[in-house]
């Protein structure tokens, strides 16, 4: 794939699109008309309108904001709405497959319901009481990190590319990068008082992550998932359970949370 370049005129392009369900599937070829500026999602819509009305795909905003149209385009997990056709060589065939880490429902649509089940396990936001004037005060610098996590559009590309989920299918022991980002957004929220460290260790299984940073690489929102979310969570787990001094401090004070420094 080449970096973006100016496109002129309409060309003909061969696409191969995954069609089928869990029982039977094939890569089907379609030739489409590629206009300047077109993205892969436009090509899929063109196929639906002219050649295969029942071709299944998810999409909503078509502007990289909702995270619905995730797919694997020439082997790379990407948003179809943010992948320009012109970024591929004119003669190159573009192959579109569904996310591999989740069971196929039909064509490009996968069953991502497991993610919603994981989210339910994470203890919700539990704010401390308001100030006497009825407000909560937070400085912008205190929330910059949390706001980075909250940019997540739940496209699940990070889940798709994570070895623990993709290659080892450890969905019963591991929450995946998305939910470390979610847990971190709550743990590092200046107003939050809940303790999620045991859950992060046990039901989200943060220890299984071996920091290959694949999730960070595919994130369309450029969230530094590994460095900013996962590693600090790992540190919290380590100091709670495996650092003798911290364990002692925790026993004496009874305080569940670590001091906030170093985030």
């Amino acid at each position, binding site marked *: 794939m080449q970096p973006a370049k100016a496109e002129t005129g309409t060309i003909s392009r061969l696409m191969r699109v995954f069609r089928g369900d869990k029982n039977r599937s094939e890569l089907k070829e379609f030739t489409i008309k590629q206009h300047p500026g077109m993205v892969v999602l436009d090509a899929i819509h063109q196929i639906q309108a002219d050649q295969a009305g029942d071709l299944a795909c998810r999409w909503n905003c078509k502007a990289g904001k*909702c995270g*619905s149209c995730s797919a694997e385009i020439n082997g790379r997990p990407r948003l179809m709405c943010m992948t320009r056709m012109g970024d591929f060589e004119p003669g190159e065939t573009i192959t579109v497959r569904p996310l591999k880490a989740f069971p196929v429902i039909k064509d490009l649509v996968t*069953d991502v319901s497991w993610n919603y089940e994981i989210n339910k396990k994470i203890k*919700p*936001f539990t704010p401390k009481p308001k100030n006497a004037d009825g407000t909560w005060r937070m400085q912008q610098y205190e929330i910059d990190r949390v706001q980075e996590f909250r940019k997540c559009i739940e496209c699940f590309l990070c889940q798709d590319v994570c070895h623990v989920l993709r290659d080892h299918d450890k969905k019963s022991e591991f929450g995946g990068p998305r939910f470390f980002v979610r847990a971190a957004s709550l743990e590092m929220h200046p107003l939050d008082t809940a303790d999620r460290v045991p859950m992060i260790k046990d039901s989200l299984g943060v220890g299984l992550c071996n920091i290959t940073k694949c999730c960070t690489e595919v994130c369309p929102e450029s969230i530094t998932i590994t460095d900013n979310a996962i590693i600090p969570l790992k540190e919290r787990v380590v100091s709670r359970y495996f650092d003798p001094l911290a364990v002692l401090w925790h026993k004496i004070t009874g305080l569940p949370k670590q001091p906030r420094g170093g985030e």
Partner: protein
Amino acid sequence: MANYQSIEHDVLVIGAGGAGIRAAIEAAEMGANVGLICKSLLGKAHTVMAEGGMAAALGNVESRDNWKVHFRDTMRGGKMLNNWRMAQLHAQEAPDRANELESYGAVFDRTPDGRILQRNFGGHLYPRLAHVGDRTGLEMIRTLQDKAVHTPGLQVHMECTIYKLLVNDGRVCGAVGYWRQTGEFVVYKAKAVVLATGGIGKSFKVTSNSWEYTGDGHAMAYLAGADLIDMEFIQFHPTGMMWPLSVKGILVTEGVRGEGGVLRNNKGERFMFKYVPEQFKKDYADTEDEARRWLDGDKTARRPPELLTRDVVARAINAEVKAGRGSPHGGAFLDIAAARSPDYIKRKLPSMYHQFKELAQVDITKDAMEVGPTTHYIMGGVRVHPETAESTVPGIFAAGEAAGGMHGANRLGGNSLSDLLVFGRRAGMGAANYAKNLKSAPALSQADVDATLKEMTAPLDRVDGENPYTIAQDLQELMQTHIGIIREEKEMQEGLEKLLKLKERASRVASNGTRAYNPGWNQALDLRAMLTCSEAIARAAIERKESRGGHTRNDYPDYDKELSKVNFLIKKTSSGEMGIRKEPLPQMPAELQELFKGESNATSQS
């Protein structure tokens, strides 16, 4: 007859954007058993695309702000056709809803003293929009989503489309729909239904709206016998992307102008100074110098004219293009690079930076964006009671874009996110109270259910019918051309005739494949709502022989004094025709009228 699944709830909320989720939370917290229907996955609804912010007179940045100023801005923006009571409740309750969202975990940008930061926006006299960069909608929906999944008594049904409301004895009793993933049918039995289905933008060619925006709630309410109000008023957002063609219509947030972005034509002229309507002249700068001073924080300077209401800015861009002063692809240039540093732009408008870089290969920290009007929002909707959000059919409630009245002839930017929370909560409350007071739910009519299922399977049973995608495209072309941003009697009449023919063609629509995740079949079923709403828009637009807000007519360019006193209502007649009638505006109490002393809503708008 096809099999179906049966599910029962006290309150069924259809639509899971800001209004729907907020309604579901409220109803469940009041003890109702609630079902929340998402047409897509949870968290993907259209609210996620809202960018600029949520209007609430918190007074954090400008202490002169209060609900009365917000109320006045809203009514003036709506050209005084708003339901005054809705606008009042909205202005009064929005600050509580913003604070409540923070208590659910939302993380708004902050002021230097640590409170919720507010930004300027079109038509708002003071900085009023609580925001998170340019992704406020994402923050709202994620916060509500996480609140909802931890609310007892609330069950989420994802990828489910509701096709019809069931009414018995003049009361709602349930709804029929299908699961998108399997195509299996589902019949909900419910005491009360909240419609929070969003808008109708998908019936237009150039739009910022997604596939979900087919007017399902508007159409289902109408078909169930409810009144629709103000259907002629459609907001064409002045700044949609223009190029490349495949992204035409995608929204460029008003936040760009709120943060100091200026509009220029192909002569480099900052043209908005020429388009300030008479009634707004005292609030807007008349020189570039004054506008610049305002941006630098000079409280004696007036606001730049780029911050006029959306209807005014959209018409101005249109006029510049018509006069031959448009950008290469038929729009205007929007420039933020001259006003702000690259770092500031990337921090306050990160999605815009990303969107232009990725999709149009334009670096907005250096170059101007090409923008033009895009179909964005419908002010019209289900006519509701201001306090309870109940429609004219008992048990049917509506909130958010599906409801009408709140925004009058034109909605102010930022008033949608606040509307979702204020009236989402009220609709949830209204529906839960209604369900509690109902002794027993009306019975479902099996004949109705069977007839509906037959109607829904018909496109798959037909061989050699019309292609549903072609009909949708023809409708979009038709609405854009005949009932678009600038309207005229003859063109609209022709459009209406074509619409009726299209309706005929739609009755012969055919889809191939099975019911399982079949977008062609889903599109075929969405056509009914799209066509119903389009017809309502066309009929109301023909009736309103004046220009006002989101309804601009070449043949009637000015306000009409008589029409300034009425809303148009659409209702199905006893013979099944689409009926339209005038309804006098509700009388505003004297103490609120005081706020508009010396102003007239019958003067010219341009």
